[in-house]
């Protein structure tokens, strides 16, 4: 036993170091985000233009939407590594339908395709009682194969103007995609924190057995989180495919890990049971600011990965021990 530990010796009443520490651990990702924002504003005139800021939001809308839904999956104790593939299938389906049937129908169908694929994920995971980590790696291979079969390996380009509205359109100065982002954030936050279903998501991830004995249909909640993740991937795919006016099976490759990384970077617990939608958005934006900074400043791209890695370590160090692990 020791009395030399300074953090423990300080009284807890006032604004103690311990309280600041706790606050930092809780909101470390926000602190870092703000710090980076300020630094970039000082470092570059171009950064703080509304155009640039809207660009950042616009560019990251697909990832953010996937990460928000992924937050629910992870809080419920799962993992979705098939979002990139679902995004791909949704994209190529949208493009295919747009070319062969109708552009607007194409955009409308992408979320439904995502929803269907996500639901299949959920049913396989709960039906076979397998861990979603492996199950979604498997399904991502299957879905990826599907996307290739749909396109025959070729790119499907959609020259239609109407098709581009979602990805490139604007309402006044604001991109349509940014509006979708804001709506998605409101919806996911509401689901998670305002509804019974959201509460169940936390309970299932926190203690599946206790949740089940409390009358929660654990399987349904899990299926729902995966379905939402699929839906989000589909919406993200629709936005992206509309933006680049072409669908290709590879489109979403790598997105799945980026999304999971952003969620966890935000501070949502990898063990489930704890987390928040805003955290994931903050995680996405933190990564986005680094990218944008490198593009806006004269930074040598050779150092980008290194910098990104170090910023993550910093974020992580700030919130160290938040969960005691």
């Amino acid at each position, binding site marked *: 036993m020791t009395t030399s530990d300074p953090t423990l010796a300080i009284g807890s009443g006032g604004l103690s170091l311990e309280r600041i520490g706790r606050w930092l651990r809780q909101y470390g990702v926000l602190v870092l985000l703000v710090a980076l924002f300020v630094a970039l504003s000082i470092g570059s005139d171009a950064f703080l233009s509304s155009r640039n800021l809207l660009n950042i939001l616009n560019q990251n809308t697909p990832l953010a939407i996937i990460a928000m839904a992924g937050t629910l999956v992870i809080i419920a104790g799962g993992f979705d590594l098939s979002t990139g593939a679902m995004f791909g299938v949704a994209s190529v389906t949208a493009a295919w339908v747009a070319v062969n049937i109708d552009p607007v129908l194409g955009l409308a169908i992408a979320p439904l395709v995502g929803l269907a694929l996500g639901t299949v994920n959920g049913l396989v995971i709960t039906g076979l009682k397998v861990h979603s980590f492996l199950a979604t790696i498997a399904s991502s291979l299957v879905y990826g194969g599907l996307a290739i079969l749909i396109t025959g390996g070729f790119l499907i380009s959609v020259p239609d103007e109407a098709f581009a509205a979602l990805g490139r359109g604007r309402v006044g100065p604001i991109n349509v995609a940014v509006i979708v982002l804001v709506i998605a954030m409101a919806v996911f936050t509401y689901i998670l924190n305002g509804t019974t279903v959201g509460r169940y998501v936390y*309970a299932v991830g926190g203690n599946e057995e206790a949740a089940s004995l409390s009358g929660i249909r654990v399987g349904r909640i899990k299926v729902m989180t995966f379905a939402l993740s699929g839906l989000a991937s589909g919406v993200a795919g629709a936005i992206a495919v509309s933006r680049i006016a072409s669908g290709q099976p590879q489109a979403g490759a790598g997105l799945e890990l980026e999304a999971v990384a952003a969620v966890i970077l935000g501070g949502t617990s990898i063990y489930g049971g704890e987390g928040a939608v805003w955290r994931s958005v903050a995680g996405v934006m933190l990564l986005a600011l680094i990218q944008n900074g490198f593009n806006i400043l004269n930074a040598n791209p050779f150092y980008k990965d290194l910098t990104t890695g170090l910023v993550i370590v910093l974020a992580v160090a700030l919130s160290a021990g938040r969960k005691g692990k």
Partner: protein
Amino acid sequence: MGRLIVAPSTVHPMSNSSASPSGEAGRGARIGLRSVSKRFGATQALDDIDVDIDAGTIHALVGENGAGKSTLGKVVGGIHHADSGQLLLDGQPVGRWDAPSALDHRIATIQQELSLVPAMSVERNVFLGMEPSRAGALVGGMRERYEALDAAVGFGLDPRTPVRDLRLADQQKVEILRAIARDARLVVMDEPTSSLTQDEADRLHEIMARLRAEGRTIIYVSHFLDEVLRWADRVTIMRDGRVVRTADTAEETKDSLVEGMLGQPVELSFPPRISPAPEAPVVLEVEGLSGGIVEDVDLTIRSGEVVGLAGLVGSGRTEIARLLFGADPATSGVVRVDGTAVDLHGPWSAIDAGLVMLPEDRRGQGLVMTQNVRENITLPRLRHFARRGRVRRSDERKATRSAIERLDITPARVNGELQHYSGGNQQKALFAKWTLRPPRVLILDEPTRGVDVGAKRRIYEALLEEASNGAAVLLISSELEEVVELSTRVHLVVDGRITGEVDPTTTDADEILKQLFGTTPVAPDPHTGPTLPTKASSA
């Protein structure tokens, strides 16, 4: 108890050369706490504690739920660091003090909340950190050591079973074996008997006595005050993180302990049993329920009735409860609540029908530790706090606040982080969770595990209140006295079947036990013989 051969006093049955680094074997540790304080956020868990624990004694800690007993034990075991104050070991201030260094000094802890490696076998858990090895390579001999240990202790667990497949009580035995196997000079035992039957508890007490005879020291935390008075040498009474007094148990009585703990005398007898009106309607009806080891159970409980299940360990009381609740799949049978058949496919439909169950393992099955008090308490009834799927928090808060008051949960914070609550207060929250809204059928599986005497009384009263409001109550407890004193009728459970019914107003606990043994066809376990599910009755 004939098989408990007391080993030669200086040679512990488990000690081997590697486990006893020094010649200290058999010499107990003397621990002193000087002005020790420990604060968690707003809670002063330990407030300027001074206690001396002498070598070769059994030193009990008693106190209300949340008084700081476990925290004190954890400070001694190196699991918590005190904020200030000093820990003296054999009169010398300790240096670096964490769990491994405490173990290096052969101070072992049995925590209140079990802490085992679920996928590992019993023996591997028991010898974890002290495997027979040479230069880091595992060598044989673990089985022999286990068998020697088991022969001395007599719990009769299969060494190869993964502990996650064990009942809670058996897991607690593994914890006990682990502490004993360490050949410790001091063992902190934090409510080691809370899941054990009387027979098993007695076995543990015998072992404690033997360890003391070898000069070892035991810190014993328990809410069973009779046991404390019977087995401990000295007792420290704690309240609100402070020491009320430390005294020889010979100088204390149950009443003096209670008064010290709670700051006032408290009625210790059971509240009066209630009996349903003769015309009270049948609420719960079970016919031919089978599944797992449970076979063909018929059960009827009327409105306002408390029906107890009495049975030996593993007789299947818990299994009956889980089947009723839809937690385990039934192979056949019908359950009716107020005459309507309940879909047994899952707890959700049972809950919809007004049938609720408080499970026996609060951490594993009862509570969601990542959620706060409010979220836990309202979980099964969340829909009642929601309109069109939207949760109304103010209603939740109101209901939670009144539950906290009713059961005196401390800290009394609606959004308190449950994972940091003391064991007894978690148990109270669990009770609150299942009685937040009046149920039609209330199944209680070990509802008072780990709660203090005052809180027990409060739970009894709450339970009876549910009954007098018209609920049907099914009570399971390894404290047979609880079952006997509170129930209107008691069913005897043997091997998953209901074999008889007794009237608790005319039959006492000993008589029930006799009947249970009489109907037990074979001894369930060759090592232990039949085990008794009651506490306090024989003590």
